[in-house]
């Protein structure tokens, strides 16, 4: 299994993924034209033909033996540059009066575009056939998630100071978002899915036009809606845990539709960015012995031909990374080339 930039020939496979993601995964609508354009934009991004602040790096995870795509993930170079990028910031307002013996703090939601210009990690999806117990040893989910830190570390000058990730919010048994029902539905003549779908397509201007511009005092929201603020969907908890481990934190920003948290960090502070480093590659002959649970992640240092995969061993004391022939082929490297590696088990 390996990560590589998406390519023109991936359209059919990408459409299969788009069908599997279904509603709620808004950045991959089942729309061939849209997907074709997305691929074209990604190809241009990896070839650095578009300005750094307009790039959407879209990666795929492929089974290089069968050519099948197992999943995808993406990095948005800078959000909010072409269309506005909104959040609510959960803030505190003090209401206090000595004469009244009153001191209350009121949680308040402020409409914000504070994250304009930040990078975003997004669109992570692993197809069902590549998840689960039988596939656990491949660590495909972790590969999709962590490859982005290695990419950002390697091409650090192409990215801004901060990175964020938007997490899916809470939905009830009927699949309804209590936060949306209580707040957004009053202002948008659409249901949640439609609003979310348009957002995924990048057609966000309606948000700015219809959103309440003044702060929202949370005591005016229902208990159910308040309980959603900053909480993630059950299925999103593992993804959130993985991001938190890398040092991303919730700073009070939430999605304006479902109230789900946006976590963020300075890119230079992200654990994988700090800990990953470059090694010179050596190649040994002989067969491959894949480890029971891979620990070392390696990624190439060229953008257009970017590859990433788990490797069996880490670098030696001199900083040389010795790969099997299969591994080298998978990563598209020859002896003497360099690779960026990360020990994913290393703590702190």
């Amino acid at each position: 299994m390996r990560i590589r930039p998406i390519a023109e020939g991936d359209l059919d496979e990408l459409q299969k993924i788009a069908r599997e993601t279904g509603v709620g995964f808004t950045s991959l609508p089942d729309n061939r034209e849209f997907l074709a354009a997305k691929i074209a934009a990604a190809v241009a991004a990896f070839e650095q033909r578009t300005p750094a602040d307009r790039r959407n790096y879209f990666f795929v995870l492929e089974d290089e033996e069968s050519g099948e795509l197992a999943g995808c993930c993406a990095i948005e170079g800078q959000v909010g540059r072409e269309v506005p990028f909104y959040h609510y910031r959960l803030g505190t307002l003090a209401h206090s009066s000595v004469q009244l013996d009153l001191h209350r703090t009121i949680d308040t939601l402020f409409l914000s575009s504070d994250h304009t210009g930040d990078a975003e990690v997004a669109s992570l999806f692993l197809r069902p056939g590549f998840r689960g117990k039988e596939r656990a040893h491949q660590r495909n989910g972790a590969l999709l998630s962590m490859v982005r830190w290695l990419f950002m570390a390697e091409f650090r000058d192409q990215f801004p100071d901060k990175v964020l990730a938007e997490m899916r919010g809470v939905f009830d048994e009927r699949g309804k978002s209590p936060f949306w029902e209580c707040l957004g539905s009053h202002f948008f003549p659409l249901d949640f899915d439609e609003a979310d779908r348009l957002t995924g397509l990048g057609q966000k201007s309606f948000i700015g036009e219809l959103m309440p511009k003044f702060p929202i005092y949370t005591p005016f929201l229902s208990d159910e809606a308040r309980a959603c603020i900053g909480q993630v969907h059950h299925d999103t908890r593992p993804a959130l845990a993985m991001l938190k481990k890398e040092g991303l934190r919730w700073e009070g920003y939430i999605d304006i539709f479902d109230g789900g948290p946006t976590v963020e960090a300075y890119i230079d502070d992200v654990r994988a960015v700090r800990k990953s480093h470059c090694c010179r590659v050596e190649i040994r002959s002989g067969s491959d012995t894949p480890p029971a649970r891979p620990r070392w992640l390696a990624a190439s240092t060229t953008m257009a031909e970017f590859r990433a995969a788990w490797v069996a061993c880490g670098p030696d004391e001199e900083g040389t990374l010795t790969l099997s022939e299969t591994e080298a082929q998978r990563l598209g490297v020859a002896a003497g080339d360099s690779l960026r590696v990360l020990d994913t088990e290393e703590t702190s």
Partner: protein
Amino acid sequence: MMVVRPVRPADLPALERLAGLATPSLTNLPAHRDRLEERIARSRQSFGREVDFPGDEHYTFVLEDLERDEVVGTATLRAEAGAREAYYTYRQETLIHASQQLNVRREVQTLSLSHEVSETTQLCALSLDPRYRGTSAESLLRRSRLMFIAQYPERFAEVLAMAFPGYLDEQGESPFWNSVGRHFFVRDYHDINYLAGVRSKSFIAEVMPQFPLYLALLTPQARAAIGREHPAHEAAMAEMLAEGFMRSRHVDLFDAGPVIKGERNRLHTFRHAAWHPVRVRPAHALPDAEPAMVANQRLADFRCVVARYALSPTGQLMLSPEHAELLGAEEGRAVLAAPLTLPSNGEEEAGFDEGEL
């Protein structure tokens, strides 16, 4: 005989009784002896002061039943509603949220804190003994203040305003307070209302939410209470609308009771008030005529009564000796008269202030 006159120190017990009788209890008339005593003192200063333009004067009047020798009502004029501190209201506003992309246009209702009413003259703190409800004395108490303003226009603002107590449910709870203010104060409506009267309303207002409120987020009960007067004040509202006041976009901060506004020149009493020399005639000799409010020309000795609007062919107002004495107006002196009865609906449409005032 009923007469409206400026309050005196001796009226304190009566004022205290009236404050307790007000339904619902009024912020600007707290049943608090010290505060009421201050009010009387302030009113006496105001009547005694030389004034060129409206400021922080309060003029408090009482309604006296001379037969019973009892004070049975009170009402106040605040020359400038927000003279010393801002007068806070919520202003009902409509924002248009339109999206070309979705081809939709939504009207979003908000309540925004406003100080706009601060510069008006406020008619407030009216309380009447319930035995006199619905009588001409009630109209006299309420509208004799307009007769006073008509005589001393320099002391008051061009625009007059009046805040009505807001809607309370059967339990005496304010649905608006429970949906709005309570979140910020964690106190009962009556509690805060009393505090506001004893201290000042604006210092509480300063702790209220400063950003506009979206109506969509309030409870349906709270929304329904916005701009709705307390049921006990519906008749008073009807009378003031007939007088020419208009419902404004402003509502009370605590209970969302309506604030009505009127430009002096548009009010019935101002437009129809006229000066007449007095001609004293025995009561039994007075011709039948429509009732009128009749006021003398004095400041600190202001008096206003209800009498018949009986004019001689030469335009003299015929008054009984008792009324003439009460007004301190001997034969030949001029008094101000205006019809007590207001046109019923139709003649003058009850309008809605669209913000032009």
